[in-house]
């Protein structure tokens, strides 16, 4: 494992932190680390800050992430990586669509021209909506506590899609699916970053697979065209034991 000393922990609301540490390794937007908290577990986390001062943004969901957000400046962070196929970042005019903590992996893509749709269940769960230039972001919440009441897709509908060279999307798989369905017959190119269980991060355990491809090595980013051919996308995945379940109905 790589071990680094944490130089800063930035609190982002109630249950989310960004942990910063110096690591002179090239990491590209869309890549992730397998972060190990000894005595707890090891979980995949996207790199939210890709400069020499790296950063990972963690929201507490389960036991391990809850313990990780308790890490302090001066503590050690253990991880391996970087892993995964990065986003293709050549295009200039970006449309960035993030749901919940999915914004963490999209943060390095935000530049002064980027347009964003940031969605979350409720206003306190919104992440990095404030990182877009003035007037460049549409906020959407499930409960209407901030911005438009609805889902990410509702924030997209008012935008002129033909003004962008590439759309980047990250969030829950059903959100990704609804967006893919919406843009299927529209000319905008898109890249999606998927999240599934990852036990190894290196293309061995098969826990993250979708239609024979491993998210950890061949993804987690996939293009619109790649996803269109996948019938497990938005429909089925394997649980921790390897049991096949329907997505959204468990």
């Amino acid at each position: 494992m790589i071990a680094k000393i944490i130089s800063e922990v930035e609190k982002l609301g109630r249950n989310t932190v960004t942990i910063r540490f110096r690591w002179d390794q090239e990491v590209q937007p869309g890549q992730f680390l397998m972060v190990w908290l000894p005595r707890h577990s090891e979980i995949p986390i996207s790199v939210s800050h890709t400069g020499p001062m790296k950063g990972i943004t963690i929201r507490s969901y389960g036991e391990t992430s809850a313990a990780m957000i308790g890490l302090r400046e001066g503590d050690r962070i253990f991880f391996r990586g970087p892993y995964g196929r990065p986003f293709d970042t050549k295009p200039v005019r970006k449309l960035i669509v993030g749901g919940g903590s999915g914004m963490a992996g999209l943060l390095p893509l935000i530049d002064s021209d980027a347009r964003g749709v940031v969605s979350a269940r409720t206003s306190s769960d919104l992440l990095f909506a404030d990182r877009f230039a003035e007037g460049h972001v549409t906020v959407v919440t499930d409960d209407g506590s901030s911005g438009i009441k609805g889902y990410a897709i509702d924030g997209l509908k008012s935008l002129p899609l033909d003004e962008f060279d590439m759309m980047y999307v990250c969030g829950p798989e059903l959100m990704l699916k609804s967006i893919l369905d919406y843009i299927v017959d529209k000319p905008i190119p898109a890249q999606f970053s998927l999240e599934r269980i990852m036990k190894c991060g290196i293309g061995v355990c098969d826990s993250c697979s979708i239609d024979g491809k491993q998210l950890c090595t061949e993804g987690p980013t996939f293009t619109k065209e790649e996803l269109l051919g996948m019938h497990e996308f938005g429909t089925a995945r394997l649980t921790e034991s390897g049991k096949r379940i329907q997505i959204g109905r468990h």
Partner: protein
Amino acid sequence: MVHIDTAIAGIQLSNPMMLASGILDENGYTMLEILKKGAAAVVTKSIGTSERTGYKPPVVVPIQGGLLNAVGLANPGIDNFRDEMKIALSGNRPVFGSIFGATADEFLQLGLKMEEYGATAVELNLSCPHVAGYGTEVGSDPVLVEDIVNTLKSNLKIPVFAKLSPNVTDIVEIAKAAQKADALVLINTVRAMSIDIHARKAVLTNRYGGLSGQAIKNVGVRYVYEVSKETGKEIIGVGGIENAEDLIEYIMAGASAVQIGTALYTQGKDVFSRIAAGLVEFMESEGFNRISEMIGVAVE
């Protein structure tokens, strides 16, 4: 003209390579993909009688010369595995169902299910913990191994492979106990561990794990050679195969076919087509026409 097809226990294989158990074989679609990439057959991950989530990660970590793993026999349970078998079998190539249990009776129930699901053969993973002899592996008890193998052989119609553990004092004794199996699979991972010196702690959650990859290749070759020489049984060689030379070494030690696991990590999924090309090249330059001409040539 060089032919790289081979056979094991009467099952025809288009080339000598199959996917090893536990690597990219939990999801039926992944097994299909591996078949498309050139594996002649796939072995499923080891399936038990009930659903298990396994250990918490880290369960697989890269180390010098290979991988260290202790997945903890995570599996959906045999009843939930029917769909994956069906998907994998749609590739119209052999699918070997790997099963694990603690008793002959458990193995039998699992074997019968695999047969019902259409498995081409079953592979008995004899490396799981032995309930009675706590702390050891099922595969280190010759009486139990013989009981399991014989029970399955007398109740199943499909071939039975016994996968042996290298973590024993005398593998020949175990191989002889598994004499009735249609083929022996050698070897499973070698018990090992890794400590993170900064965390001052074992990296794997289970602390102990199994070593695979390059680091164990010559251990595997030696076991294949020894068991082939002492028993004359059909053998599937496994452990650290990354290129055509490694595969040929196993064949010359007495294996009729091989399995590939860790090389999926070190070499990627094209490993099957790359090895096949290297194999053809070697056979052409050395004047071999068939795999059978190479099997066991080094054994003396």
